[in-house]
């Protein structure tokens, strides 16, 4: 897609400007916000930056006088996937941002431990009770400056949000829980009968969730396919083996283990759904780290069951119980939230009939489970009542074709409906 680069308006009385200099060459790849060219009027000299990333196609050469609004270049937007690869600076930046805390930790190590701290930084840190090992030094020779401590204080709120919710922002399909919490809050805020609206700044956590979800929406070609699952056999199975299972494994048999096992069968059949887009490449994962969205009083998190394919039913159920326990006791570690290749989210526990889950970026697939309700269905030309669940698989259409997504979801459906398939791996 082409994007016009125009000479911006620089003031009411100014109708034309001199294009003094191109800071980029024709054919260069430019990033959003990078300075492109300089215009001069009798009033101002202005650097004009790129609105969007892409390849620059210059239409007007340096030294020409142009009217305000003239298209002086066109930026050919590249495929999003391509952009990641080509864009030098942006690529460098993104991981930096994502891995912010890690990168900082590293540079701390480089600093002389305990030795290189400005006295003023030390005093401020003592006053504000800042742990200096958390502060990134910027001074010469790895010295921690007062400014470093100030910046740390200013960002500590965001930082707290980051580590609290490292992943929960990805837990979109289950957001009802946090939405509910916020609605509750909003309601208590509405105690003043005169007030018709309440305006509140988003909490840092909410802002992060918002940014992450919007990013997933904007940067992927997301599409959702639906199906429905007859739960009767799996329910019967569960009913029959509930007690012996608990006795043997000290954990109760839930539906989650069936779905996760079924997902692995689906992913094995359609490896693209278990892959990531990275620049121009597709990264296939030959392991199955399945994230499970878990709602709790403290918010939503998506801990990852690593190598879920190596676990048996009891192993999966135990993993989930362990995570729930960790969440409740605030013991969840960052490592528990990292590395997922696919996500399962159960909106059914809140009563959702149907939804389109948002991808947990950079993953390419997410399964949405929903509530089980008895519905009339046709089986062998007879209308019968069956416990049914709608399931939704959202996928990144850039690398997952519709056929694969549908096949994957059909495999999940088949495995849950006929659990013996998982036993026999068919």
């Amino acid at each position, binding site marked *: 897609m082409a994007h016009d680069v125009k000479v911006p308006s620089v003031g009411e009385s100014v109708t034309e400007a001199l294009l*003094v*200099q191109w*800071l980029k060459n024709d054919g260069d790849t430019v990033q959003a916000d990078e*300075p492109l060219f*300089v215009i001069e009027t*009798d*009033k*101002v*000299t202005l*650097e004009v930056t790129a609105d969007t990333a892409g390849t620059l196609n210059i239409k007007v050469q340096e030294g020409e006088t142009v009217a305000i609004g003239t298209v002086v270049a066109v930026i050919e937007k590249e495929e999003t996937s391509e952009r990641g690869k080509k864009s030098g600076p942006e690529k460098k*930046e993104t991981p*930096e*941002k994502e891995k*912010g805390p890690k990168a900082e930790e590293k540079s701390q190590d480089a600093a*002389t431990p305990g*030795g*290189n*701290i*400005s*006295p*003023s930084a030390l*005093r401020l840190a003592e006053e504000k009770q800042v742990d200096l090992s958390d502060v*990134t030094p*910027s*001074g*010469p*020779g790895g*010295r921690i*400056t*007062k*400014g*470093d401590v*100030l*910046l740390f204080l*200013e*960002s500590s709120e*965001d930082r707290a949000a980051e580590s609290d919710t490292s992943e929960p922002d990805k837990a979109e399909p289950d957001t009802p829980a946090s939405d509910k919490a916020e609605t509750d809050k909003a309601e208590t805020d509405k105690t003043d009968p005169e007030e018709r609206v309440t305006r509140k700044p988003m909490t840092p956590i909410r802002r992060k969730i918002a940014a992450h979800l919007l990013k997933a929406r904007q940067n992927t070609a997301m599409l959702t396919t639906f199906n429905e699952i007859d739960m009767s056999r799996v329910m019967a199975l569960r009913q029959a083996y509930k007690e012996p299972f608990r006795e043997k494994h000290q954990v109760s048999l839930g539906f989650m283990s069936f779905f996760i096992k079924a997902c692995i069968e689906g992913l094995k059949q359609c490896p693209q759904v278990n892959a990531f887009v990275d620049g121009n490449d597709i990264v296939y994962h030959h392991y199955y780290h399945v994230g499970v969205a878990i709602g709790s009083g403290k918010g939503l998190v998506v801990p990852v069951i690593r190598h879920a394919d190596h676990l048996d039913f009891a192993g999966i159920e135990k993993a989930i119980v362990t995570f729930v326990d960790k969440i409740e006791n605030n013991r969840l570690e960052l490592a528990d939230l990292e590395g997922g290749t696919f996500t399962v989210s159960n909106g059914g526990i809140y009563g959702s009939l149907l939804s389109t889950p948002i991808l947990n970026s950079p993953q390419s697939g997410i399964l949405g489970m929903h509530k089980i309700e008895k519905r009339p269905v046709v089986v062998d030309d007879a209308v019968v009542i069956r416990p049914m669940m709608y399931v939704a698989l959202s996928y990144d259409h850039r690398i997952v074709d519709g056929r694969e997504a549908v096949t994957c979801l059909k495999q999940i459906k088949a495995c849950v409906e006929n659990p013996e398939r998982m036993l026999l791996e068919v």
Partner: protein
Amino acid sequence: MSQKNTYDVVVIGSGPGGYAAALRAVQLGFDTALVEKEKTLGGVCLNAGCIPSKALLDSSERYHQARHKMAAHGIEIKDVRLDLEAMMSRKSKVVEELSKNLRQLLENSKIEIIHGTARVEAPDRVHVTRAGSTGAGDRELILPARYILVATGSEPNSLPDLDFDGKHIISSTEALALDAVPKRLGIVGAGYVGLELGSVWQRLGSDVTVIEMLPQAAGSADGQVARTLMRLLKAQGMDIRLKTTVTQAAVKKNQVEVSVKAKDKSDTLSFDRLLVSVGRRPRLEGLGLEALGVETAPDTGRIVVDAAYRTSVESIYAIGDIIAGPMLAHKASAEGAAAAECMAGLPGDVNYDTIPSVIYTSPQAAGAGMTQEAAKSRGVPFLTGIYPFSGTGRARCLGETDGFVKLIVHETSDRILGVHMIGPSASEMIAEGVAALEAGMTATQIARMVHSHPTFSEAVQEAAAAVRKN
């Protein structure tokens, strides 16, 4: 002058770092000696750096104005003639006077000044070899010391295959004392030294070509400031070639032939003089520090110090260009004073977040605190506010409307993180930025602070007001 049995502090080097340290040390009650290798005090800054270059920049700017800018003000000057000799001797006089003042100041403060070459023999002993002509006293001296402060500064880097010959291939030292205006002056390195000296000689009539390897001139300046400066200097006629490297240079028939290579084209240029200004390296040779086990950083060769400016040998301190950080006179002075305080057990400190840097071109460029690039790479949420000098009445009166003031401000706290400017008197105006940074002021506070009208500094106020408008 009598020799003391032992000194509390022996400072090696009388540059802005060394003399500031010595002055602070005597204030704190230390018996202090200052060792200087050269005949004159003040180090590179006073003798072959900041001061002489500013004298020449000011003189050459006046010449340039007389020739090109006065007419616009309705002043006609005929037969403007350059007397380079007079200009140079004025420069020398400025240097001499300042050096003399410095000597007086130090002597009045009861600092013992010893001219000679120092070697740190032991952690508590400095050996000085006096120059033959200094007269009185022994040629070899031993100065026992409780603390030794090394402040020997830096010297220009040379390029491989481009060794200084002092005549054709020269460093900044010689470029400040040429006896004739070179017709064509080549400069390798578009840092502040190259751009300032290039400006001097260009105003005096040289054709100046600056060759820079990196994609940006003016080193660590804010990118927008650097690009603007580049554009304005080019408009003045300076040929600045970025992303260009020197592949070969040879002196032939009183000319320097330089082969340069840009992205996809090569060129051979011919100059009367070639100034190599590609940064500076710490001056540590012959000090004997290595033998004592004073640690240096393997990548930069600079001495490693702790927060109290102490080296890995407890009684030896180091400051200025020989330790990490920008090689700036005022940074060295601040460190010198702080180091002396640390020796006295006080919490000596330098605020590295606010150290200003200035390029004395025309217009001047100045900055303090975080650049936009730095804020971005550190992931700090920030806003910017920019105001052009063309919007200020004062700049219009002067007829110097190029440039702008730019503030980098923390997005949530509104605290000012960086102040950058290019324009008239930027070197003076940056002090307001430094004060704001030091005090942790917000953009709103600066915007509400009353600035007198009409002044250049109104641009700072307007830039602050523009932060939240954008």
